[in-house]
């Protein structure tokens, strides 16, 4: 069975939703395929309003079920009984995880993908990020610069709505901003102290795709807290709340869920994709679709899996892999946490749950190497403010009224946590291959990642601990504890996996060109995280959106000018 569309988009997450919106708005008939289950905006969010007592075990982690069905997914902070419906069942859909080169593949199994569960932090790359590979020669240069991408950042920001404060920082360009969220009293205290004692460490409100004003028909945030359950008021960006409705409005969208894409088929020239072969996740029925252009947005590991699994005589090592780079140069952001205890502003409190924190942008190696830095590139910190309650002190002596009363009030102190996200250098040995024998339930070879942090990541993490001590001290912490490489996150746990189908001008070293177009297959575009040639230290989703929109404009222009044959 074959059906004709102008474009097929594989994946409906952060990048796939954008491809659907841009392509349908340009008049193309678009088929979006997703392996995940259908999920309606609003009514589909089963746990959105769940109280602790509405959930099994009063919302405590179901250890047995997690171990059996979600051993990987249950590792992430965003996973819980309140949104378990979103996540991939690791027992039914495993991948091959190597104990000695571990990589945690955090993924969902619903339409909308991780645009439902993401942390919503949105930051632009700077010229420093785009030129890093060229300047320190750690990898191939990017084929674009910030100037080219800036208008596309504006384009996507205006649609999704990004709240934040303009700071005029070169290393963290300002976005098109809605007003920033407001501060805790202690955050104001900390910011004032840091400005005085550590003026080289900037502090700003987290920039996030959460609305502080009504925007494009979606409501401003009402500060209930757990965004990762799904938000029926559309107050944060997700495919469900934003891009898919826009695509649907055009009348040009067909969305089919429960379809795993097994492989792409090219024509006899090897230069054009002609068909997408799918397997229904429920019936295992095989259905194929054709189109003129194809956008691969299945997420980093899944897209590369698909390219590798589509090998043929013309493309013996995976599609568009003359360079040998396909599957290689896998990256994630390295992470570690630091905490400080503060007794200032203890007589102040808060109302509402703010789903955001402060952000401390990169201040190391800006515009050249810092003298005391034995590492390349840099890192930033995401900050979280917490006022401990009974959960932090139930483990004390006491039986009866005095024990009960001791648990009712907030603690006399605040806890401020800084979480480092450090840039990861692209290394050839960090890669994704198809396992030679392990297959998934559809007969598709399992993804087998190999990953280990390099010296540079470990040094960045160590330095972030050293600097965090200075920050905590200057901020006025009465007690603090910092992390180092011993506490470095597992690869993949940053949930910013990127690379393995990198872009570059030279087809001998890159899979894609500057427009996310496969060097060897003109009607194939890959716009999820797999195209990334380096990783910066900032959260990448906004960059995926910008490149996707830009690639769509190029692809349609090429199509209309008959340049994709």
């Amino acid at each position, binding site marked *: 069975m074959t059906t004709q569309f102008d474009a097929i988009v594989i994946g409906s997450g952060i990048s796939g939703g954008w491809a659907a919106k841009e392509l349908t708005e340009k008049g193309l008939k678009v088929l979006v395929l997703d392996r995940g289950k259908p999920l309606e905006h609003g009514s589909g969010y089963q746990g959105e309003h769940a109280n602790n007592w509405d959930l099994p075990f009063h919302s*405590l982690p179901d250890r047995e079920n997690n171990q059996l069905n979600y051993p990987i997914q249950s590792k992430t*902070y965003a996973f819980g009984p309140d949104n378990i419906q979103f996540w991939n069942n690791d027992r039914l859909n495993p991948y091959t995880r190597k104990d000695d080169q571990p990589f945690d593949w955090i993924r969902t199994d619903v339409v909308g993908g991780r645009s439902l569960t993401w942390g919503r932090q949105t930051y632009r790359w700077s010229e420093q990020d785009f030129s890093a590979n060229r300047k320190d020669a750690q990898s191939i240069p990017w084929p674009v610069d910030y100037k080219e991408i800036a208008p596309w950042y504006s384009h996507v920001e205006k649609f999704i709505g990004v709240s934040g404060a303009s700071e005029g920082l070169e290393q963290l360009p300002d976005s098109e901003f809605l007003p920033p969220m407001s501060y805790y009293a202690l955050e104001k205290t900390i910011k004032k102290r840091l400005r005085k004692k550590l003026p080289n460490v900037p502090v700003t409100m987290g920039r996030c795709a959460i609305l502080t004003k009504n925007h494009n028909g979606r409501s401003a945030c009402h500060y209930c807290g*757990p965004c990762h359950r799904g938000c029926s008021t559309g107050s944060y960006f997700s495919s469900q709340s934003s891009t898919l409705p826009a695509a649907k409005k055009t009348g040009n969208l067909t969305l089919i869920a429960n379809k795993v894409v097994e492989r792409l088929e090219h024509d006899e020239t090897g230069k054009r994709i002609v068909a997408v072969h799918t397997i229904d996740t429920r019936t295992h029925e095989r259905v194929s679709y054709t189109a003129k252009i194809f956008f691969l947005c299945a997420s980093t590991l899944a897209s590369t899996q698909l390219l590798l699994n589509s090998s043929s005589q013309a493309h013996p090592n995976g599609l568009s892999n003359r360079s040998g780079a396909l599957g290689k140069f896998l990256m994630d952001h390295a992470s570690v946490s630091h905490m400080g205890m503060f007794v200032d502003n203890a007589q102040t409190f808060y109302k509402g749950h703010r789903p955001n924190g402060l952000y401390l942008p990169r201040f190391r190696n800006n515009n050249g190497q810092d003298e005391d830095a034995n590492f390349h590139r840099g890192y930033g910190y995401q900050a979280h403010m917490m006022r401990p309650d009974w959960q932090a002190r139930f483990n004390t002596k006491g039986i009866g009224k005095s024990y009960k009363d001791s648990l009712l009030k907030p603690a006399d102190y605040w806890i401020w946590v800084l979480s480092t996200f450090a840039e990861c250098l692209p290394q050839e040995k960090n890669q994704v291959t198809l396992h030679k024998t392990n297959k998934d339930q559809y007969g598709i070879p399992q993804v087998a990642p190999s990953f280990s942090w390099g010296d540079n990541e470990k040094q960045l993490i160590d330095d972030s601990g050293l600097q965090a001590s200075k920050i905590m001290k200057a901020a006025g912490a009465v007690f603090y504890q910092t992390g180092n490489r011993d506490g470095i996150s597992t690869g993949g746990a940053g949930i910013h996996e990127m690379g393995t189908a990198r872009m570059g001008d030279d087809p001998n070293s890159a899979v894609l060109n500057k427009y996310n177009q496969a060097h060897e297959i003109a009607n194939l575009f890959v716009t999820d995280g797999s195209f990334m040639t380096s990783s910066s230290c900032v959260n990448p989703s906004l960059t995926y959106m910008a490149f996707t929109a830009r690639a769509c404009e190029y692809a349609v222009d090429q199509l209309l000018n008959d340049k994709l044959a």
Partner: protein
Amino acid sequence: MNRRELIQCASILITGMASSSELWALSKDQKQFIDNKKAYGHAKRETLFGSRQRSIVANAAEAIIPRTDTPGAIDANVPQFIEVMVVDWLNDAEKKIFYAGLITLDEKLTNDDPTTMVTVLEAMEAEAKGAAWFDFGNINRIWDSEAPFICQFKELVVLGFFFSETGARQVLRENPMGSFNGDIPLIQSDTSYGNSTAIRSISTSDK
């Protein structure tokens, strides 16, 4: 009714036994209250607590978090929560500690007086004072598998209480939605907010 009567009444409630004059004399209201209560029991597994176990668990929970000028453990259905957690959530090794501890507790209870329960629990807690459970910061984990019975029990009471509707809304208070303000005065009498994310779910994640 006074507190002693409440606990006796609740024991009967929890044990599921029909009101019986063998054990205690109940007022007509208390009998009515018990008879109207819905049947308990929705745990997955078949091995539930026996009636004596239920009675002890209910009385011990109430001793740890009593009804004061605000509801207590029994008001918040903590005994039922504890039963489900022990039967369905603790692993085999942790269950063993719990059941052995419950037997020990039973043996130490020489009478049904609520003050005896408090004394016995305090003594068990004093005996356990070297346990790592009491270490500052030993809360950023899903469960302390080494915790002795008295610590397990207290933690279950606390979790069952503050994550219950009664505990969250009538003892603590709910964080109002609508807007965020990070700079409001904290009054002496202000409680912290109930109905919030379990910290251990986030702090134990790989970051």
